[in-house]
């Protein structure tokens, strides 16, 4: 057992898979010799050499095109897009090429690649470098989408993503990079499509993802201590495939559900989950499902403003309390 930061876990997760499988390669902007702008890939270049760990030109389209070509011709690339906001400049690959190749070629072409990317707000990077765009990928048939919230899950889900035969978009949260967590020794392999109950409870289910998981957990402790409300917190972890069994099972026990999303309100991932709940668990609900989201605005760069718009522990606590006690 070791204590590792989320950023160190990224490097360890990639190293675990590169050591296991010589077909796994890794490239992106400033990821090799500099070790990444977030220092999440330090040491990989030294360990695996310039043939398998490469710096690329500043062209997201080139990175994605290279990854797709490598994947189709037998390698298992991990490609980095530095800021997930930049998906917008290479979205043709993400939306039209990766997820369609197997389908349109009737299985003759495969696209086993991982795109890892720095996602989310909290680092004062402004409207074009702070967004949470996991919902952009969730809506594309053929993509798998994961977003770990802790170092252990980073390694385990990275392994699952690399070993998956289809494209997986791997969202790392920029504000979580310095966060530490206990990580067991040895190989860690997790399963895509599984959520985790990170805090059991009986009064309400709080569904959260990535940076919102620690906030939801803190809010749950506060709700218990200050208001006697016992919340179950579920780390959704994987948006596609989605672990509906864990989510709906939790709601069948607690009968109330809250989502905590960094996505702007319209079409955030919680909207889809609430829609599924309406279909599958309507008569398990003892009150309206409530979404706690970032408002539908471009993210501000000013620290006070950025802090104000993201769901906070205070806002989660207050929203759950008001909804349960009114």
């Amino acid at each position, binding site marked *: 057992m070791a204590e590792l930061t989320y950023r160190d876990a990224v490097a360890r997760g990639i190293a675990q898979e590169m050591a296991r499988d010589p077909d796994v390669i890794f490239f992106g902007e400033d990821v090799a010799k500099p070790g990444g702008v977030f220092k999440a890939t330090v040491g990989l270049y030294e360990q695996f050499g310039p043939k398998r760990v490469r710096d690329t030109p500043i062209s997201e389209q080139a990175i994605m095109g290279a990854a797709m070509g490598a994947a189709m011709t037998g390698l298992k690339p991990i490609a980095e897009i530095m800021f997930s906001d930049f998906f917008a400049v290479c979205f043709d690959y993400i939306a039209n090429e990766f997820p369609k190749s*197997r*389908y349109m070629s009737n299985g003759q072409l495969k696209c086993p690649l991982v795109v890892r990317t720095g996602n989310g707000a909290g680092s004062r990077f402004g409207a074009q470098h702070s967004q949470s765009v996991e919902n952009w990928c969730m809506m594309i*048939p*053929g*993509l*798998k989408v994961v977003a770990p919230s802790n170092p252990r899950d980073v390694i*385990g889900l990275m392994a*699952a993503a690399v070993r*998956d*035969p*289809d494209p997986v978009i791997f969202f790392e949260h920029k504000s979580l990079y310095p966060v530490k967590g206990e990580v067991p020794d040895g190989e860690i*392999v*997790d*399963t*895509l*499509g*599984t959520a985790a*109950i990170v805090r*059991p409870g*009986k*009064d309400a289910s709080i569904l959260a993802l990535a940076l919102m998981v620690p906030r939801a957990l803190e809010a749950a402790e506060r709700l218990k201590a200050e208001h006697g409300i016992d919340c179950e917190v579920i780390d959704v972890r994987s948006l*596609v*495939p*989605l672990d*509906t*069994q*864990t989510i*709906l*099972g939790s709601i*069948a*026990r*607690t*009968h109330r559900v809250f989502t905590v999303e960094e996505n702007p309100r319209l079409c955030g991932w919680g909207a889809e989950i609430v829609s*599924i709940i309406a*279909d*599958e*668990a*309507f*008569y*398990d*609900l*003892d*009150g309206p499902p409530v979404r706690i989201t970032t408002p539908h605005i471009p993210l501000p760069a000013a620290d006070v403003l950025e802090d104000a718009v993201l769901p906070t522990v205070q806002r989660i606590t207050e929203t759950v309390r008001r909804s349960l*006690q*009114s």
Partner: protein
Amino acid sequence: MPQLGETVAEGRITKWFKAPGDAIKPGDNLFEIETDKTSMEVPAIAAGVLTEIRVAEGDVALVGAVVGVIGGAMTASTAAQTPGSTRSEPRPAPAPASSGLRATAQQPIKLNPFQEVRTPERNFGPARLAGGTVVTPLARRLAAEAGIDLGQLAPTSTSRRISARDVEAAIAGGTKARQPTDRGPTGDPQRIIALYERGSFEEVALDNMRRTIATRLTEAVQTIPHFYLSIDLTTQRLVEIREETNATAPMGADGEPSYRLSLNDFLIKAWGLALRRVPAANAVWAHDRILRFAQSDIGVAVATQGGLLTPVIRKADAKSVIEISAEMKDLTARARARRLKPNEYQGGASAISNLGMYGVREFAAIINPPHATILAVGATDRRPIETTDGFRFVSRMTVTLSCDHRIVDGALGGELLSAFKSLVEHPVGLLV
């Protein structure tokens, strides 16, 4: 299992025309189903090979259930769900239902790309009660399952809506539970059986139709405030017109008269016109409102081997007696063969039941929900009536109208019967 009408929740497969391994093309009859009112053949709409039968002959399945699988060249890909999604670590066991609420067993749900929108199979009532109180979905489900009348509950002081907690409190308190309505056979059959000597009876299993009749008529008697109005009619002229009409019917190509009208055909027409003359009675009770109809759709009770069916004659007020007669012959034949489609026995605001052929003089019928009335027709016989110089015998009959008092008050029912009497006694009104 196809949806055969709004109120049908399940069906029984009575026959499979195909066996696993058989090639299927669109239009081939796949299986036959029996619902509470009808039986019907269901054809295939896709080509392929029947690979699996999931609901065997004689078994019942809910509407929407998969009863069989047709496989073929096209197999749905569920790429997004392909990774062996078994968990690497044991999942925490579901906690026992907190505070006594029933935890729904959750099956793994495959969200495959071809999945249609799934909606709850049952509706547990409105979210807002008549008084404006809001009830949560879970509370509605629990109340319905426990037979609790939500109208009797009030939100607890901390809540603005009736929630599961309030319903649980009512269940725990043991009060407010409504008499369970009879949804088919309830109670202990052994207690009935014990009253009779073994071997003195044979047991007859209930089919869907008998079950439905039991449920609906019990519900009708328990929930509809019935009252009854009887009236005697002189049918002398109607009987004469009928005989004359039949005697002069043109011959068809087969050398037989092209129609043979029954007295009941005339009565259906007269009843349709009477309802049109008294539109306030041509209506049904819809709990928080009344639905009033411009045309007269009339259910006509048909005795079949399995029980009573009431196929509906649409626009009886606008059709000729000959048309009504032809339609009745067709509907009756298909009702007896249990080949009616649901839309042929649903709807209407009133019905006619005629037991005259058995010599029954008069009787009171149970309203067939959601109808507002039903007209029970007795036998036509020769009865004395007073004349200026004594009496004479004429054809007379007695009819009894059962009314739902929520819609039809006594005076309105009287007006309706009076209109009917006028049409029957002056049958020229049926022709013009």
